[in-house]
């Protein structure tokens, strides 16, 4: 799976599951933590989705504000684990 495909799926997941489903220009640089799109609980949801959809088990040590700040950082971290 390419980076672009992964980004696309994650973006769709965030818009439909963590937001109201309205496509509002969420992109790979939208601050997910700072804007409260991801919070301490939905992080767990995102990590589960990642494991189910991409088969990537995100280690706890990678659940950091730097890796979760936006989709760009998250995918970069995932790429290191594929």
């Amino acid at each position, binding site marked *: 799976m390419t980076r672009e495909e992964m980004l696309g799926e994650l973006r769709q997941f965030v818009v439909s599951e963590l937001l109201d489903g309205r496509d509002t220009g969420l992109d790979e640089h939208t601050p997910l933590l*700072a804007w409260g799109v991801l919070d301490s*609980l939905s992080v767990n949801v995102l990590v589960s989705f990642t494991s189910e959809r991409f088969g990537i088990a995100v280690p706890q040590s990678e659940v950091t504000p730097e890796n979760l700040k936006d989709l760009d950082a998250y995918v970069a971290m995932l790429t290191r684990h594929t």
Partner: protein
Amino acid sequence: MRLERLISDSAVRHPDRPAIKDEGGELSYRELDALADRTARALTELGVRRGDRVAIWLNKSTQAVAVMQGAMRIGAVYVPVDPMSPAARAATIMRDCRIGALVAPGDRARPVLHGELAGVPLLATDSDAGQMAWSDLDDLDGAPEPNRGSDDDLAYILYTSGSTGTPKGVCISHRNAMAFVDWAARAVGARAEDRFSNHAPFHFDLSVFDLYAAFRCGGRVAIVPEHHAYVPGALVDFIVCERITVFYAVPSALILMVDRGELLAQRGLALRAVVFAGEPYPIKQLRRLREGLPSVRLFNWYGPTETNVCTGYEVREIAPDRSVPVPIGHAASGDRVWAVSDDGSEARIGEEGELLVSGPSVAVGYWGRPPQGDEPYRTGDIVRLQDDGEYVYVGRRDHMVKIRGHRVELGEVEAALLAHPDVTEAAVVTVGAGIEARLIAFLAAGREPPLLEVKRHCAERLPRHMIVDSVVFLQELPRTRNGKLDRLALQRKTMQEVAK
């Protein structure tokens, strides 16, 4: 006895025992004491004097603890600011208490140090952006001038959500804090061999126990980094690896560890006491914890920030037919507590009333407002007195809610939403409790902004736990016949939304 004495006394008694551990490593009492002295000297060099307020806008770390100590050692008052708070809200807090210095990373500090805060000296922790950098501390040696402060001086100010939209600064004196710390340390039987955890953020009063109970007995406290606070596996690993003996957190965190982190399946846990506070622990989940940790002492503590902890209850066996949360207990910290019914009389056994508190742990007052004096503090919490003398929490009088233990005044969220140019009416309700608690905004708006935009708008004004989780648009908000917002109707609509 002043709070800063706890570390210096322990540093004399057992200088080589470990005092504090964060992601960067561990310091002994001797090392922490020396770092606190250097920080005190640095703050003096920045111009901080007795009674001045020092804002600490740092992530949870040994560094932040050293600054708290440094401030108190020169008689100053520390103000921990939520590291997740947006610049606008942090600046509101810093202006409100007219800070005399700020300790923060340079990039974080820059957006707030203008206007009224333009001249405030900065100790920059990560760079040389301020009047002083953390690396300059190495050049400062020796103890600061001993302060001749009294126990009635303020030790710190904790800002909580305010119903009118502006946070309120709860002023805690050394006497207030020590009344609680002394009681709490005795209640759990704190001793030098204990390894405490610090789960709560420093602007949240649960952290006062973690730090000062440890320092008082010469024990060790390990800091949970912010980003792991609700990652169940990481929390359980932390308890195992740090061999934590006393763990204190909101029930939400404990429930996550039990349900999703397999806390109860761990072998060889060093835990001997688990304390929770901040919100009711649902009885079903508490029963699992009780049964899963049969030899661990469990405590339910209660108290708004304004009272530290004013009641406590030790959870022993839980009756199999109990269906409501365990009591919040009876008076703690040397306080007196009682409940007053609507007719003004003291509630008797079986009756409900608002819980009132007076005594040494009741805060001096709010910053910038008249002091509490000898008036009892009215908690706004409705309780019922059981026949065994223990109080049971029943509910709130007003629109304050808890989100994972954090106090949220719905009025503060509503005020922020109304600042959005498209929003004409706003009301916020909560759905779910504890770990599942969510904030739902009902909005009337000319144009209906998408959720992402509403979240962004909130994020610029409110701390993260106050950002709304979802939005429902209505033509107009339901009103009662006398024109007041009909919150009951909104709660019913909320149930419908959740059912969808």
